[in-house]
């Protein structure tokens, strides 16, 4: 086999392997997104902030462990967000800058959600009892969640593009630097 071709195939296989690992983490992330929504619906419909909750950090934070639905919601939210970390690591290895940026954006969006979520509990406590701000907090939390979903959805577009590029261009000589010439498949 021509050495340049063998090199191109090796490189293509290495990138393809990394891309498939990214796909695995994206599948997990989408599963956790769905679980977050399911648990969020439980919180939305069945959870209300108890009157005994103090309007301070420990009071609000302890609510995460007080209700199973809230605990599940937060856990799945953390898991879905954390799936972006291996995606970023692998995307850096194959120089997919757009994917890195989109997942960094998704993490940033979710961070906003991790602030407004507890704020909802805070504004709903008896001591504060500010319905408007509690509603806005919930609205922001849900909006940034959707933003994160959209950003991670978009990232997959770039990964699929790279997958196709590697599969069809890497060994065809169409990649920059490759001296192998393309022959039309029969």
């Amino acid at each position, binding site marked *: *086999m021509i050495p340049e071709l063998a090199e191109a195939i090796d490189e293509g296989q290495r990138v393809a392997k990394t891309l498939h690992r990214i796909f695995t983490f994206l599948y997990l992330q989408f599963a956790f997104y769905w679980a977050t929504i399911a648990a969020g*619906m439980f919180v939305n419909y069945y959870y209300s902030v108890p009157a005994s909750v103090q309007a301070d950090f420990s009071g609000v934070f302890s609510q995460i462990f007080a209700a199973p639905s809230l605990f599940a919601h937060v856990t799945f939210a953390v898991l879905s967000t954390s799936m972006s970390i291996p995606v970023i690591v692998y995307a850096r290895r194959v120089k997919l800058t757009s994917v890195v940026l989109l997942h960094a954006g998704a993490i940033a969006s979710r961070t906003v959600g991790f602030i407004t979520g507890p704020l909802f509990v805070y504004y709903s406590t008896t001591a504060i009892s500010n319905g408007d701000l509690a509603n806005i907090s919930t609205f922001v939390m849900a909006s940034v969640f959707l933003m994160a979903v959209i950003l991670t959805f978009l990232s997959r577009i770039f990964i699929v593009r790279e997958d196709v590029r590697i599969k069809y261009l890497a060994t065809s000589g169409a990649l920059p630097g490759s001296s192998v010439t393309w022959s039309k498949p029969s």
Partner: protein
Amino acid sequence: MEQAKLTASPQGEELGTLGLSGLRLTLRLCYLNFAVYLAVYVSGMYINIYITSGVNTIGIADPTNMIHMIGATVNFAISFIVMIVGILYGMRKVALFSLGALISLVAATIGGLLFLATGGARQSGSVTLVGGWIMSLLFMLALFLSYYATLRIMRATRVLEVLGKVQ
């Protein structure tokens, strides 16, 4: 060179018979579908947080509800078109994902109607909440399935573009 031929052939790809321009048009339709999904999600969130959060109820004729339902109908129509494209032009996975999205949307609509018919507020009772549950979860499932159908179309488009370049 033989290796290059094998690696570059579109084996295992579901390219269909629609052609590049048709695929691009379908892809644009799918992107439009996502914009509408977004509008349905935001209007649903608005209803959930600002209208039905307490004892207040929502009726079928409420303007926000109308926007929400029209959006869902557009989602249905676009998903239906994509499914038909998948069936007619030999893209089995696109057709299956779109069919899944359609079934989810129909079941979600039934859930939404159950929510409206049994009181239309979060405090209307457990059946109302079940309706809300069905609506929300199946809407997200429809969104995910439409997304996978879109990815298949995008991949086919990209493969045809790349093969067009190298040939």
